[in-house]
């Protein structure tokens, strides 16, 4: 018996209305999801993956229309159904787990009421029965105290908990199709790992099909059975997950997989990048949409659109040259520049930055609390951190959100004033307060910010922004011509043409804005550049460009970096030295190789274990952290990590602060467990 696919899209075309004009977003996409299958939909931002996923549920934005094609749900065309018929299908037969967990929960109702509403509506359950089902659902998504959580309001829950509630809602009617639209993008990597485990088992229990939409190739590799790769609104490839990752046939897939930084250190190499940017909806290439960026494109690729061909059982690829790629006669090599010459390391132990006992606390410093000596209302964001950045090297600072890593970086550059501690720049003590720092110190200490969209003033051209920085921080008087020359030089250093100087930020892509921000940080040859999550808002292929660029500039300018990230894979590529931070303290530091292999602090171990490897054959590690980072207002006593530590050894962890233990050549771990025991524990772990 032939099984009907759960959902089948045939030659679907979707248009958006932008400025009174219809532009095509999804172009003739066909997609089949079979029962019991978890189908991955992967693509960069703007590829149309969310549009497509929602269109499969016949859920469209107001300014979108389905121009042609059909969507068959168990053989029935959804596009012919009336709205009231769709309302019976939505929520009951297909449901959605959205990207932003909080925005999709109604703040005015308790969790229990919201989940109960669905079964009352779709299954006609009575109020008490629906309420009971809601609590059961919360239990199924492994919420510890479901009765209590059911009585809470959405804002009282953490992001991970909110996403559990969303999945409980989505699964409460046992839908045939579950659409997950980037459900873990907003979460920390440790929380993500827990939620992914949960998804995996729940999707299996639910015995329906699932569509998992993500830009993260690691998550897709770990979650899905089959994967469709979307680019500029067209399917580039579709394959079982093992084959897609082990043996990709499309040049786009090959380049994308190559551009991911791997969690294992590889400083010597550069990340291969995909040149250019994805085409905008309005000006899609006539031939193959990927041709302008493809390293192996022929004239034919520009002239004629390749067909989506079946290359094997369940494998589709849209490329003129897939046969050559498949039989190995055409190697797809993305542009690969040799690494720039490194500055020779400085002799001895030269440090560009020394931080000693730095502390920062926030809180309502009201007159009353000061007089009363009430300390409880303070939030200790950074607590006595001592660390060093060696000259011409990169220190990576990693940790979950709430670990204090951003506050620490902001204290160092002076955007926040540290309460206690000393900051030594090039062995000279500098004031903690930004206003007291002389221009010479400002020059040596610059910063790259996280959000590319507010890093540049929208009312100033790129040239104006760079010129101003040069003029403010210059060491000698410069003529206007010299300043302009320097602007062009800086733009060239970040691979931008001189005409970018006349552009406004609105005319730049996210990656280009971030490049200008990097150019601005390097405007006055700083000794140390602090980069706060410089690539976390960017797509994988753009991230590779920025990571390469940061590396090149460090080599070229002889600067040092302090890079903050929650992405341990990206930071492994950049950093020589890693410091792991938890609740305002550093818990482990060492060279990248040392930190990424045993022995490591149980917290580091959990962070590493949580990384979804972009390879379906490598299973995610199984060390999981339950719960959330405790609030910095109520720091646990003893070892701060004991409330979540999977390797807690006993009462000592709750009572005594752990000592620093030396693991050799500068590698230090702050834990009660002796180094030898950690090695044994971690090497025996499966």
């Amino acid at each position, binding site marked *: 018996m032939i099984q009907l696919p759960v959902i089948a899209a045939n030659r679907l075309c979707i248009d958006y209305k932008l400025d009174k004009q219809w532009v095509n977003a999804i172009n003739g996409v066909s997609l089949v999801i079979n029962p019991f299958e978890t189908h991955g939909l992967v693509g960069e931002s703007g590829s149309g993956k969310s549009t497509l996923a929602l269109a499969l549920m016949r859920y469209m934005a107001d300014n979108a229309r389905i121009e042609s094609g059909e969507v068959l749900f168990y053989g029935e065309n959804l596009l012919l159904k009336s709205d009231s018929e769709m309302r019976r299908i939505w929520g009951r037969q297909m449901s959605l787990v959205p990207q932003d967990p909080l925005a999709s929960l109604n703040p005015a109702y308790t969790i229990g009421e919201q989940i109960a509403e669905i079964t009352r509506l779709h299954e006609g359950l009575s109020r008490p029965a629906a309420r009971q089902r809601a609590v059961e659902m919360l239990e199924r998504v492994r919420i510890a105290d479901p009765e209590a959580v059911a009585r809470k309001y959405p804002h009282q829950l953490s992001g991970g908990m909110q996403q559990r509630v969303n999945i409980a809602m989505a699964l409460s009617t046992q839908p045939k199709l579950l659409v997950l639209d980037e459900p873990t993008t907003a979460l920390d990597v440790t929380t993500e790992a827990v939620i992914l485990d949960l998804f995996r088992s729940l999707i299996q229990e639910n015995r329906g099909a699932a569509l998992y939409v993500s830009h993260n190739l690691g998550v897709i590799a770990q979650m899905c059975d089959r994967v469709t790769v979307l680019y500029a609104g067209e399917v580039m490839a579709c394959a079982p997950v093992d084959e897609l990752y082990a043996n990709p046939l499309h040049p786009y897939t090959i380049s994308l997989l190559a551009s991911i930084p791997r969690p294992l250190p590889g400083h010597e190499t550069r990340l291969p990048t995909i040149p*250019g940017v994805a085409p905008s909806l309005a000006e899609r290439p006539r031939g193959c949409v990927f041709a302008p960026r493809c390293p192996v494109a022929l004239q034919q690729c520009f002239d004629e659109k390749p067909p989506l061909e079946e290359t094997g059982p369940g494998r589709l690829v849209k490329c003129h040259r897939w046969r050559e790629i498949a039989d190995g006669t055409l190697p797809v090599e993305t542009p690969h520049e040799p690494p720039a010459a490194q500055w020779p390391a400085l002799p001895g132990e030269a440090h560009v930055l020394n931080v000693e006992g730095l502390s920062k606390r926030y809180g309502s410093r009201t007159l009353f609390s000061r007089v009363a000596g009430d300390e409880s209302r303070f939030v200790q964001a950074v607590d006595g951190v001592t660390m060093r950045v060696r000259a011409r090297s990169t220190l990576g600072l990693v940790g979950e959100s709430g670990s204090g890593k951003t506050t620490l970086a902001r204290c160092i550059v002076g955007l926040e004033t540290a309460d206690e501690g000393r900051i030594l720049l090039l062995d000279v003590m500098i004031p903690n307060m930004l206003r007291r720092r002389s221009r010479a110190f400002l020059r040596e200490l610059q*910063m790259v910010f996280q959000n590319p969209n507010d890093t540049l003033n*929208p*009312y*100033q051209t790129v040239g104006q922004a760079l010129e101003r920085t040069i003029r403010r921080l210059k060491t000698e008087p410069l003529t206007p011509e010299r300043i302009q020359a320097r602007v062009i030089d800086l733009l*060239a250093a970040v*691979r931008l043409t001189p005409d970018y100087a*006349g552009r406004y930020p609105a005319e730049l892509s996210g990656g280009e804005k971030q490049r200008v921000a990097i150019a601005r940080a390097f405007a006055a040859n700083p000794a140390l550049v602090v980069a706060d999550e410089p690539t976390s808002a960017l797509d994988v292929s753009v991230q590779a460009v920025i990571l390469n660029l940061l590396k090149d500039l460090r080599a070229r300018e002889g600067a040092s970096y302090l890079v903050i990230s929650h992405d341990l894979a990206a930071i492994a590529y950049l950093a020589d030295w890693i410091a792991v931070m938890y609740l305002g303290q550093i818990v482990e530091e060492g060279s990248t190789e040392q930190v990424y292999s045993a022995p490591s602090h149980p917290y580091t171990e959990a962070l590493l274990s949580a990384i979804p490897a972009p390879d379906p054959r490598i299973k995610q590690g199984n060390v999981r952290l339950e719960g959330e980072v405790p609030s910095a207002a109520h720091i646990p006593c003893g070892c701060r990590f004991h409330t979540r530590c999977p390797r807690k050894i006993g009462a000592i962890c709750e009572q005594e602060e752990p000592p620093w233990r030396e693991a050799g050549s500068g590698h230090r771990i702050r834990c009660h467990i002796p180094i030898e025991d950690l090695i044994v524990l971690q090497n025996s772990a499966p």
Partner: protein
Amino acid sequence: MTDASLTPQSPPYLPRLKRYARALVGMLQQFRARPLTLLGAAIVALFLLLAIIGPHIAPYPYDAIIRGAARLPPSPQHPFGTDRLGRDVFSRVLWGAREIIAIPGLATGIAVFLGTCLGMFLGYIGGWVDEIISRVLDSLLSIPALLLALVMLGTIGPSPVGIVIVIVLLYIPIVTRVIRSATLNIRSSGYIEAARLRGEPVVYILFREILPGVLPALAVEGALRFSYAIFLTASLGFLGLGVQPPSPDWGRMVNEARESYARTPWALWFPAGAIAALVIGVNLLADGLRRIFRYEGQV
């Protein structure tokens, strides 16, 4: 990548004028797409024109009492009729346009300027200074506008300068609040922090980095305040606290005509209609500006 052409070909710095011109054309196109905004702009432009040339094209002086022409209904000779004293209403409305625009305009300008400076400063520095001044301004907001005006003008005597002072005092807290909240949205941006990290003085950050960002809020707020100020000025005129007789004041003309409304209704219609038209025009314009800037102001 783009390193194919690193040698400068086109001048890297496009003429700034060209860019401004492009922005202006874009704005005009926006106006054209919104007929109501265009109507508002046209009304405001007409009244501005009247304020400038009104006294020159008025057929009679504002205080001329035409013999034997009292209580005449509108006619080609007297388009708006004459009042009970025999003064030409059309001429008086034309003469009055100058004051009804100049007083609120000047007052709004001063209030918006001071309020913007204060709002940006408070929003940027934050801390206890902001806390104290903001609370004081909030408490000023609770004073009813007319009450303050009556008390103040009653004390210092009715005069145009008095009205300007009253409006400025009333509107500074409101403008400050709006600009302060617009500044708060900008303050934590990366580009402000980048400016701090290169040691820019506060004045530079306020006027070069923040001001362009609050300009949309400023334009909308300015237009809105202007329309309220017109209304307030007319109200004060009506209560006899504005420009003193016999000079023409639309508000006072309405009040004077009220007594003889049964016999000379036109003497009330035209000044009242002029006030309404101007306020509606300014409001349409403010509303359009808000949409054009996609600014959601909290008024």
